[in-house]
């Protein structure tokens, strides 16, 4: 039932509003609202009960195993929320003067330094609000760099066909044309194909390593050399940083610019769709272009770096300084991990992924790249099942829900047919992985003996399989009485 369906004219939660209606006469009639907005009219308890019950209809990290590939659904330490919600932090106005911001700025500065360390980049700006905005900022810096050199012919950004959709979309938002690079059958980029498209029109390439097919791009040094030789820059999509934290640094691999998804690697919660934080790190030559504001420290005081300090900046990406509260959570997590904890993230996420891959292969599932090590994630393809049993990846995914497991990422990357991208993360215990394997085997069995059971799944959730086509065709986007 919608909250609107519990609404009754004249019902309220009056403790939540000023007790009286103040005078509006200072506002000219012509600018005033004639009719009250149609918001729900419910009691305080009705709202609390409604949203409490709604929440119970979600799968989440706090309730379910959630091996959603590329999304790094790991444990979000609860201290992050408590400490980011300390009254002093919640009450701070974004325009508070630096005299009243030293504690807050110290956290941001420290975080900048930590991110520089783990990425091997020269400088970091924290301001992008999510991964995609980080990508935008990164590509915009590549553009600013070429522009500053008067190098106007570079109109193209290269993107592997396996790349996350935000990569090409971000390049386009920066005014670039996008050209796709194919992935080889071993999961690495097809370097020959790359060579053929590199040229004076190449502004740069966007990679993630380990790539979105879940393997480490072994020829990364050669690729970096080729792109640089062609005058292009290398962009690192850091959504997969979880895989390599403390093991290999994008800066050392030759990347010029990187964004990080703190809401993945640094374990700030996803909140059912955000907020995130997508800081960018750059090599020395891109530093002047970093988005503002950034935080500086002179040994005594912390201060904002703004337009005056950074005239070549690509500018501001949000009205204030991005998702400050997410940055604080990431900072807390980073400090709790410490230097050794960083290593453990990649070690155990990789251990979990390789274990899961191996056991699933033993159980008869097909890996997309069976010869390769898994990174923190890996791909299965259910092509065979789809062909032989008529049970496809979507069906497997939905049936997993019935067993209390959130489905892995499905049908991404696009180049692997009927794929499942599986990322267990380092915070899941072996028993949980074993249970996943068991459930996958059960579903495989069901697919053979009772395929309809799988194809009609889920059966035990608040709704059965939803009609997406209808949703798009008969658009119903708002409640109308």
């Amino acid at each position: 039932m919608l909250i609107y369906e519990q609404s009754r004219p004249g019902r309220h939660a009056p403790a939540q509003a000023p007790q009286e209606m103040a005078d509006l006469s200072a506002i000219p009639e012509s600018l005033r609202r004639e009719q009250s907005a149609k918001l729900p009219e419910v009691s305080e308890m009705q709202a609390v009960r409604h949203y409490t019950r709604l929440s119970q209809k979600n799968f989440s990290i706090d309730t379910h195993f959630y091996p959603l590939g590329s999304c790094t659904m790991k444990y979000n330490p609860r201290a992050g929320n408590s400490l980011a919600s300390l009254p002093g932090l919640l009450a701070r106005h974004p325009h508070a003067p630096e005299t009243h911001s030293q504690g807050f700025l110290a956290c941001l500065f420290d975080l900048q330094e930590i991110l520089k360390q783990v990425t091997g980049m020269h400088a970091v700006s924290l301001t992008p609000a999510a991964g995609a905005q980080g990508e935008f900022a990164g590509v915009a810096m590549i553009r600013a760099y070429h522009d500053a050199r008067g190098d106007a012919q570079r109109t193209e950004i290269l993107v592997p066909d396996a790349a996350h959709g935000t990569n090409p979309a971000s390049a386009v938002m920066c005014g670039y044309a996008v050209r796709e690079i194919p992935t080889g059958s071993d999961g690495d980029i097809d370097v020959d194909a790359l060579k053929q498209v590199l040229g004076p029109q190449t502004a740069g390439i966007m990679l993630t390593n380990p790539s979105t097919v879940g393997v480490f791009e072994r020829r990364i040094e050669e690729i970096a050399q080729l792109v640089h030789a062609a005058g292009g820059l290398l962009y690192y999509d850091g959504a997969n940083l979880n895989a390599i934290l403390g093991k290999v640094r994008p800066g050392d691999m030759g990347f010029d610019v990187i964004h990080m998804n703190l809401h993945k690697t640094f374990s700030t919660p996803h909140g059912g769709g955000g907020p995130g934080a997508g800081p960018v790190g750059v090599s020395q030559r891109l530093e002047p272009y970093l988005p503002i504001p950034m935080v500086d420290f002179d040994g005594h005081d912390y201060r904002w770096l703004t337009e005056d300090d950074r005239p070549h900046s690509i500018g501001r990406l949000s009205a204030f300084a991005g998702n400050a509260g997410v940055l604080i959570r990431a900072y807390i997590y980073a400090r709790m991990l410490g230097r050794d904890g960083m290593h453990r993230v990649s070690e155990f996420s990789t251990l979990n992924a390789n274990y899961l891959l191996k056991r699933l292969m033993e159980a008869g599932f097909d890996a997309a790249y069976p010869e390769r090590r898994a990174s923190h994630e890996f791909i299965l393809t259910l092509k065979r099942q789809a062909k032989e049993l008529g049970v496809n990846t979507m069906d497997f995914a939905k049936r997993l829900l019935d067993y209390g497991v959130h489905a892995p990422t499905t049908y991404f990357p696009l180049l692997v047919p009927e794929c499942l991208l599986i990322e267990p993360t380092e915070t899941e215990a072996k028993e949980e992985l074993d249970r996943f394997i068991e459930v996958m085997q059960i579903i495989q069995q069901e697919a053979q003996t009772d395929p309809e059971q799988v194809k009609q799944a889920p059966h035990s959730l608040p709704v059965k399989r939803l009609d997406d086509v209808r949703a798009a065709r008969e658009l119903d986007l708002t409640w109308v009485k």
Partner: protein
Amino acid sequence: MPFIPHTEEDIREMLAVIGVDSIDELFDEIPPGLRCGTLDKIPEGLSEMEISRLMQARAKEDGQPLCFIGAGAYDHHIPAAVWQLATRGEFYTAYTPYQAEASQGTLQLLYEFQSMMTALTGMDVSNTSLYDGASALAEAVLMAVRANRKSKSKRILVPRTLHPSYRKVVDAIVRNQQIELVEVPYDQVSGRTNLVELDGFSGEDFAALVIPQPNFFGVLEPVDELTDWAHANGMLTIGVVNPLALAILKPPGEWGVDGADICCGEGQPLGAPLASGGPYFGILCSTQKLVRQMPGRIIGRTLDLDGKTGYALTLQAREQHIRRSKATSNICTNQGLVVTAATIHMALLGAQGLERTAAACLASTQKLTEALTSLQGVEPVFEGAVFHEKVLRLPISPKDALKLLAAHNLLGGYDLGGEYPELGNAVLVCATELRTDDDIETYRSKLERVIQTQIQTPCQLKPDW
């Protein structure tokens, strides 16, 4: 090992299954020369007790000054229930609802959010958020450029009364696509966009006119005239609104004869704490006609196999994960959790609660204005009706005044000197419903002393009262 559940035995067993001797071997595809050593410069890990101590100290360090700044972020009462519910694990730690059947909680809530936003704005459709108000405006501009088939110019009219940061953000985002922002001046008496000067642009090719309501000065713009003028000149209109103000102000859907085409704004006043500027959320609504040009997630109501109602992401063909380089935007992660809070906030306040809150803000700002202008030399700069904030001229340098007030743990407002030097000693002050009469009197009396001291001994560095 914080957050790592593996026992020694688990590790041994798992390595044996994989067939390697050590975890390190799992990284053998990384060229050895690239392997990094220890991360020496990163401090050692802290226990929760230790990080708590550190964060408590840092949070305390910044004090909790009495705040009279608005300028895009407003200090409102947030019901205790809002964040207690929003931070329930099931909301807080879920991903974007890709698996609809396992995410009906978030999806239904977002559908309710869309319904509330369209109710508040009077528009047909709403997405489920962009990063913040400023980036939402950038997306609105991109949307307008795509949608206005009549216009070829990629030019947008942007009033100087629009929040300066919004102007900067929009420029940073859209200039890469060769979109040009053209400034419309304002009237120095009323503080509103100058209709006469605007009319000078008549007949020129612009994709859209941006209309802030209220504008950065807190002043209410003549939205009907602006909307009609834009439409008459073949432009789309993009409202930039404060959603709380919409509880009492005419909604963009009703501006002028035909209503605005797009409306965006900062969602923060609907339940997000000040929190240093984020996470907040960007609102984006439009007419039904433009729905396929919208960026961001949109939720649709549909049916399941049994014909039961359910909710799912829809129109995904607009989005980057399907459409890649042809998507309406690159946005992926948005501000879901804050939207969750805002939805609960709106359900708790209802229209009446928001109206009362907005009216109380109006009254507070009026009281503040009266209190401060009772001081010799302090005067209002503009005539126009305002919401949330007011521009005042001080008899001394706002920079010095604000600094001295801050030394007394009071944040006196936003110094307009940097962005609007033409206004002289102008400062933008704000008092929400949370500021009491006592608070306002505190401000008045402190400002009185600051002015006295400064006029007697200007630029004194350390006030000695």
